[in-house]
C-alpha cells in the first residue's frame, strides 16, 4: 500500500507564521506551560535566529527573558507567542481535509511520544495520504509531489514530502532523509529563515529496505527510551537493526520495536483512520439572469455571508480570511479579506465587504458568486487585567489587540491598499533609504524594537529621491555658502557634519556620502549630502 507522508517541520512555528505573516523576519519563540510535574513555561519551538541566540526547545521562558542576546548578535527582542495546541490541531485537521483533493484517504499521524529531528515531540505534525493508485516511481508520483509542494507553499507552509511503499517508510524518509537525495523543489525565500529545509523524496517499493538502512533507528517512530537503549548498545542505523535476530529483539526491547520495523518494511500492514471532511465553509449562489448592478451583487454577498455565519454558528470559530469569487462572462474575479481578529459580527463583515467592493473591478455580468472562509480562528475571550503590564515587558507580547482597533485596521485595509497601513520597523542599516521597513500591523503588541544609536539626528521628512543641488559661492575645499536647485536658493548660515555613510557594497550601487545638517539664514534646517564618488550635492531631508 503506497503512502505519501507530508511533514510540517516546526509545526507550532509554521502555524503562527501562517496566521501572522507580519512576524516573518523577527525572532519568534513559542512557549507553552510544561507538563504536570515540571515547573514553569518552556519553549516549544523557535526560529533559526532564536536558535542562534542560544534558545532551544525546552529552554525555560524565564531563562529566555533573562539571557536574550547575551551573545551580542544585536537581535531585536523576540516575539513570545503562547502555543495554542487546539488551534494547531484544528488547522492540521483542515489541512488533512484539504489533502482529500489529492487522495481519497488522508489522516493525521498518531501523536505518540516519538523522536523527531529536533527532539521528542508528542503532538502530530505530519499527514499521511493513501496513494494506492500511484506507484512511487512513476512520473505521476513526481507530479503529485510537486503539486502538493506548491499547494502547501501557497498556503504559507514549508513541507518535507516522501512517497514510499509503506506508511512507516514514507514517515521515516520525510523526517530523516538527507537533503542531498531530495528531488528538486522550489522554496519561497521567506522559508529560508525557518530551521529545517524543505525537500521531497520518492522511493520505489523494491528499494524500501535499501533506502531505510542508512537512516537512524529513530526513523522507526520508536519511543526515546527504546532508541536510547539501542544507542547504548551501538545500534544506530536501521540497517544494523535489521541484521539482528527478530526474536531476540522482541525479548530485549519489547514488541514495539519489531512492530515498527515491520510497519516500515511492509511485513505488517499499518492501518490509520481517515479524516472526514467537516462542514464546508464554501457557499455559492447562481445568479440567473446575471447581475450587472453593484448593489445587487452586494446583496448577494450579504446573503452568502449570512449562510456562512450560520454554518460557523456553534463552532466557536470566527472568520479570519474571507475569499469572494465572481464568475464573469469569460473569467473568474476574486478578492480576499484578511482580518486581524476572528469575527462573526455580520454588521462588521458586511461593512468590510461593502468597502472592498467599492474599489473592486467587478466583471460586467456576474453569473455566480462564491464565498469561502479560507481561514478561521477560535473566538477567544480574554480575562481583563486589573493592572496593565509594564512597558517593555516581554510577557505582554501576546496581549490581544483591542477589538475596536482591530476593526479600525480592517476598515482601513479594506478601503486603502493593504500595504498602505503599516507599522514601521527599524533595520540595522546605515543608509537612510534602507534603514526601516514597513510591516503589517500586528494583531498583538510587539516587543521593544531596535532603536537608533544615541545622538543620531535624522530629519523628520526624507525625500524619496534625493534632489540635486548646485553649490556656489565658495572657494575650493570650503563648505558652499549657498545651494541652488530648480525652485529656490538655499543660503547657508551654519552647518554641522560631516556624518560619513559608506555602505551598500553588496547591493547594486554602493554609497559613500558625507551628510551635513545645514541651517539657512532664515533658520530653516535641511539635511544634505555630498556624493563622494561623484562630488555632487543632494538635498535629502528636511528638519521640518
Amino acid at each position, binding site marked *: 500500500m503506497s503512502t505519501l507522508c507530508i511533514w510540517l517541520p516546526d509545526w507550532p512555528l509554521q502555524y503562527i507564521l501562517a496566521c501572522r505573516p507580519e512576524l516573518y523576519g523577527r525572532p519568534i519563540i513559542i512557549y507553552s506551560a510544561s507538563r504536570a510535574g515540571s515547573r514553569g513555561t518552556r519553549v516549544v519551538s523557535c526560529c533559526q535566529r532564536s536558535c542562534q541566540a542560544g534558545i532551544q526547545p525546552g529552554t525555560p521562558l524565564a531563562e529566555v527573558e533573562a539571557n536574550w542576546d547575551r551573545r551580542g548578535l544585536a537581535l531585536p527582542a523576540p516575539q513570545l507567542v503562547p502555543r495554542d495546541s487546539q488551534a494547531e490541531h484544528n488547522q492540521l485537521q483542515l489541512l488533512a481535509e484539504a489533502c482529500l483533493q489529492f487522495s481519497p484517504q488522508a489522516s493525521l499521524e498518531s501523536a505518540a511520544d516519538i523522536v523527531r529531528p529536533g527532539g521528542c515531540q508528542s503532538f502530530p505534525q505530519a499527514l499521511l495520504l493513501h496513494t494506492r493508485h500511484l506507484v512511487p516511481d512513476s512520473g505521476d508520483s513526481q507530479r503529485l509531489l510537486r503539486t502538493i509542494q506548491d499547494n502547501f507553499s501557497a498556503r504559507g507552509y514549508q513541507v518535507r514530502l516522501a512517497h514510499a511503499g509503506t506508511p512507516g517508510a514514507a514517515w521515516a524518509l520525510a523526517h530523516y532523509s538527507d537533503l542531498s537525495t531530495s528531488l528538486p523543489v522550489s522554496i519561497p525565500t521567506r522559508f529560508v529563515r525557518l530551521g529545517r529545509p524543505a525537500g521531497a523524496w520518492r522511493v520505489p517499493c523494491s528499494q524500501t529496505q535499501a533506502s531505510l538502512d542508512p537512516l537512524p533507528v529513530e526513523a522507526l517512530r520508536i519511543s526515546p527510551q527504546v532508541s536510547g537503549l539501542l544507542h547504548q548498545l551501538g545500534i544506530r542505523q536501521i540497517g544494523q537493526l535489521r541484521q539482528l535476530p527478530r526474536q531476540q529483539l522482541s525479548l530485549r526491547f519489547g514488541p514495539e520495536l519489531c512492530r515498527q520495523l515491520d510497519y516500515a518494511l511492509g511485513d505488517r500492514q499499518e492501518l490509520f483512520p481517515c479524516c472526514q471532511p467537516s462542514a464546508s465553509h464554501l457557499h455559492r449562489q447562481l445568479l440567473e439572469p446575471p447581475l450587472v448592478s453593484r448593489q445587487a451583487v452586494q446583496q448577494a454577498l450579504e446573503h452568502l455571508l449570512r449562510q456562512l455565519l450560520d454554518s460557523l454558528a456553534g463552532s466557536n470559530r470566527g472568520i479570519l480570511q474571507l475569499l469572494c469569487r465572481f464568475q464573469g462572462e469569460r473569467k473568474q474575479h476574486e478578492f480576499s479579506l484578511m482580518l486581524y481578529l476572528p469575527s462573526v459580527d455580520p454588521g462588521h463583515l458586511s461593512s468590510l465587504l461593502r468597502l472592498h467592493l467599492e474599489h473592486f473591478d467587478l466583471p460586467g455580468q456576474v453569473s455566480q458568486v462564491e464565498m469561502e472562509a479560507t481561514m478561521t480562528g477560535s473566538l477567544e475571550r480574554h480575562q481583563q487585567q486589573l493592572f496593565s503590564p509594564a512597558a517593555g515587558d516581554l510577557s505582554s507580547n501576546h496581549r490581544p489587540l483591542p477589538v475596536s482597533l482591530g476593526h479600525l485596521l480592517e476598515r482601513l485595509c479594506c*478601503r*486603502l491598499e493593504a500595504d498602505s497601513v503599516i507599522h*514601521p520597523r*527599524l533595520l540595522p542599516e546605515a543608509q537612510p533609504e534602507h534603514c*526601516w521597513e514597513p510591516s503589517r500591523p500586528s494583531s498583538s503588541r510587539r516587543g521593544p524594537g531596535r532603536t537608533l544609536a544615541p545622538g543620531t539626528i535624522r*530629519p523628520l521628512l526624507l525625500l524619496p529621491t534625493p534632489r540635486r543641488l548646485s553649490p556656489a559661492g565658495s572657494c575650493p575645499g570650503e563648505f558652499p555658502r549657498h545651494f541652488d536647485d530648480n525652485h529656490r536658493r538655499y543660503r547657508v*548660515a551654519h552647518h554641522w557634519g560631516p556624518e560619513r555613510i559608506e555602505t551598500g557594497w553588496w547591493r547594486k550601487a554602493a554609497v559613500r556620502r558625507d551628510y551635513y545638517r545645514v541651517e539657512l539664514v532664515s*533658520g530653516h534646517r535641511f539635511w544634505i549630502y555630498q556624493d563622494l564618488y561623484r562630488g555632487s550635492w543632494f538635498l535629502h531631508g528636511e528638519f521640518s
Partner: protein
Amino acid sequence: MLRQPKTASQVPVQQLQRLRKRLHDYSSGNSTLGTTVVSSGSQELDAILPGGGFLPGQLIEWLGEGDGSGASTLALQAAWQAVSLGGMLAVLDHAKFFFPPAASTLGIDLDRLLLLRSGSAQEEFWALDQLLRSPEVAATWVSLGHCDDRHFRRLQLSAEQGGTLGCLVRSSRMLGRPSWAHLQLLVRPVPLQGLVPPGNPLRQLEITIIRCQGPGQGKQAVICLPQ
C-alpha cells in the same frame, strides 16, 4: 407610570440654559471635550496655551513657515504626548516623506505608531476622518493641504466624537483661511545668532497663537526644540 409631559414654557427655558452654558464654555475656553490636559511637550508653549495644554478631541493647526521650519516635529512631539494617556499614534503620510527613524530619535515608540500612506486625496480625507473618530487612536498627525470648510467641520466633529487629538501640519499660506481648528499656531524658526557651538545645538522656534477659543490670541513663546 407615565411621565408628565413638560409644559410648553419649561422646554425653551431648559434649552436656553443649556445653550447659554455651552456658549459660555466656548467663549471662555473651558472644555466641552474632556478634562485631561495634554502637555504640548514644551513648558514654554504650555504656559501660553489656554488651559495649559491641549485637550483630547481638539484639532490643532500648526502653520509652518516654509519647509524645514520645525512645525512638523513640534506637532509630532505634541501628538506623542497625547499617546502617553493610552492608545495609538497615527501618522497620515500622503506624500510618503515621513521618516520613522526620526520619530524614533524623538523618543516615539514605533510599536505604537501606525503609518498610513493613502493613494489619493479623497482616501486621505476618509482615513483621517476614520482615525479621528476612533477612540483607540490617541492622536493623529497629518500634513494637510487644502481642506474646504465643510470637510474641515466634519473633521472637527470626528475628533470630538473620538476624543482624538488632531495635529494638522499646514503651510503658513493657509493663514487667514476659514478654519474649524480649536487652536491655530504659527511656527517660525529662529536663526542662531553669534558664535554657534559645535555638535548638536538646540533649535529655537517662535510660536504665535493665531486663533484660539478663549483668551490667549496673539501670545508668543520661544521654545527649544529637541533634536
